[in-house]
């Protein structure tokens, strides 16, 4: 399913999107399949499946640990695409990974593997617009969305450049810093939501962990909420994981629904 279809479906229901991140292969490839199903049951609209890289500079301790568990569990790009291809879900799946894994596989092969395994979008946190030309072209050709991040530090001229390139949704980094759950929502977040003027849906990530925060983000004008570390934390604790993932997804989705 294309990301844009999902957002227009949600728009008809006047509903915001819950975008859930987990790292594929954390702690095993088989576990990931079960967790994805649980997140869908809980109400996730889009799932970001991390493809683990050895040096994840944009991630905080929680997701770093998830990535390390996945790599120790033997996750590789080959296994990743096989696993994704075998998933039976009817929502958009997005791969989040670092540029070197794409570069090493070959940009064209990577994008084609995405298309054939059912991935709808690609997020590369260490690939700014300036360096993205070749990948963007391949994504367009294969009908895959290349999703860009904007941050509170993004200048107006950069913002314009990013908004013309980004498809699927725009990933708003709620605050300076790496990924990780936090208890408050920064003032800079609503400011940033106002600054991103585009018809492409806006989803806010970094630091969101509960239904109340999700509601605040949607009330501030976002079309979606991205939650990662809070889910990865559940996987790290390792107890009753599918039920807890489902429960958190459903709490977040309730928050998102109330906000409208």
């Amino acid at each position: 399913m294309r990301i844009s279809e999902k957002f227009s479906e949600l728009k008809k229901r006047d509903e915001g999107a819950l975008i859930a991140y987990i790292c594929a292969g954390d702690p095993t490839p088989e576990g990931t399949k079960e967790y994805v199903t649980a997140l869908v049951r809980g109400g996730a609209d889009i799932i970001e499946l991390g493809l683990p890289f050895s040096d994840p500079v944009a991630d905080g301790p929680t997701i770093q640990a998830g990535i390390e568990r996945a790599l120790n569990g033997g996750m590789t790009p080959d296994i990743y695409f096989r696993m994704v291809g075998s998933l039976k879900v009817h929502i958009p799946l997005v791969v989040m990974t670092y540029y070197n894994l794409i570069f090493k596989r070959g940009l064209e092969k990577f994008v084609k593997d995405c298309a054939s395994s059912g991935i709808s979008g690609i997020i590369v946190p260490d690939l700014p617009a300036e360096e993205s030309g070749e990948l963007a072209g391949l994504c367009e050709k294969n009908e895959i969305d290349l999703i860009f991040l904007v941050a509170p530090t993004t200048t107006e001229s950069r913002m314009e450049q990013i908004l013309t390139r980004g498809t699927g949704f725009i990933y708003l980094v709620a605050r300076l810093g790496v990924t990780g759950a936090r208890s408050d929502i920064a003032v800079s977040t609503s400011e940033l939501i106002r600054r991103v003027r585009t018809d492409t849906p806006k989803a806010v990530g970094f630091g969101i962990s509960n239904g109340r925060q999700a509601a605040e983000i949607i009330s501030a004008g976002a079309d979606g909420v991205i939650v990662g570390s809070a889910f990865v934390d559940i996987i790290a604790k390792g107890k009753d994981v599918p039920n807890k993932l489902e429960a958190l997804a459903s709490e977040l989705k309730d928050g998102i629904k109330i906000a409208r």
Partner: protein
Amino acid sequence: MKQELKSTKFGKYGGQFVPEVLMPALEELTGQYEKYKEDPVFNEELDYYLRDFAGRPSPLYHAKQLSREYGVKIYLKREDLVHGGAHKLNNTLGQGLLTKYMGKKRIIAETGAGQHGTACAMVGAVFGIKTEVYMGAKDTVRQRMNVYRMELMGTKVIPVKSGSQTLKDAINEAIRDWVANVETTHYMIGSVVGMHPYPTMVRDFQSVIGKEVRTQIMEKEGRFPDSIVACTGGGSNAMGIFHPFIDDDVDLFAVEAGGSGLKATDKEALHSATLCAGEDGVLHGARTKVLQNKYGQILESSSIAAGLDYAGVGPELAYLADIGRIKPRYSLDNEALEAFHDLCRLEGIIPALESSHALAYVKNAAASGELGDVVVINISGRGDKDLETVLGMNK
């Protein structure tokens, strides 16, 4: 052949592969660097600190006994005599001054063995800027004395417990810190690696080494050397001495750490010879040669010399190697150790194990004629920091 600062690339290498959050800071840094590199007041102040604080110029010393032993006329560029015991201070003085001129209130840095961290600590103290240094937890144990040196000068050392707990992870953590504090903080990268403008800027600040050699060798020999040999990890001492000679008829040898041999598994390499054995990849913000497995996961590198122990290399070096302007070579751990002892015994100079790789290569290659008649070796640092390692190896 010289690259303009405006370009973020060296051929296909370099660039800015960083989170969006950092892009405006890199733009700002590039702009400020462009402005101050031509500013007379800035340059006068930098020259003052290089001279009166760092002790420059460093001598170019004709090593007669070593020349006789190795069979080629050898000059040593004595960066080991720079304050702090290594070339690292050339760069940190430049960036430290830039931090001051930009009005940033805090310096962060990564360090492997602690040499760059120490040079940052000196600059933090002398310019009165709060300084925090990330260092792999393993390295803080291996290099306890350097941790103490930094702390004495008021720098906070933060042990990094993620990943392999070495330099690569210290860089990751410093980048994460910068992402969170980019508005107030300058990230002081210690080598010609990372995202633009660092490879260019660090090279320029280190170029003082090669500029001095140009004058000094003319005084002593009346001509340029046939070759220049420098050890290469990230490559800052190499680029510093190479760059001013890039358009001259001088052969440039970048000697990497061959560790215990150029072999690797899926997770680790037994060496750090990125130019000799690496492949194209993207690491720490730049496209360059990297040590990686077939999927692009970065390998843990290895070397007796902590300062060369890095899975990447400066993008400009990757470019210069591709076009054949520099010649990548390597020395093994045991060869470096042997050359270390040679210099101690023959010249009364205790070199860093890093610099010993350059010496070892000259020892091996002199007979082949590849180096010509007159060679300059960059002694990038002194070896006092390595005595425990050497003691351990001799047992």
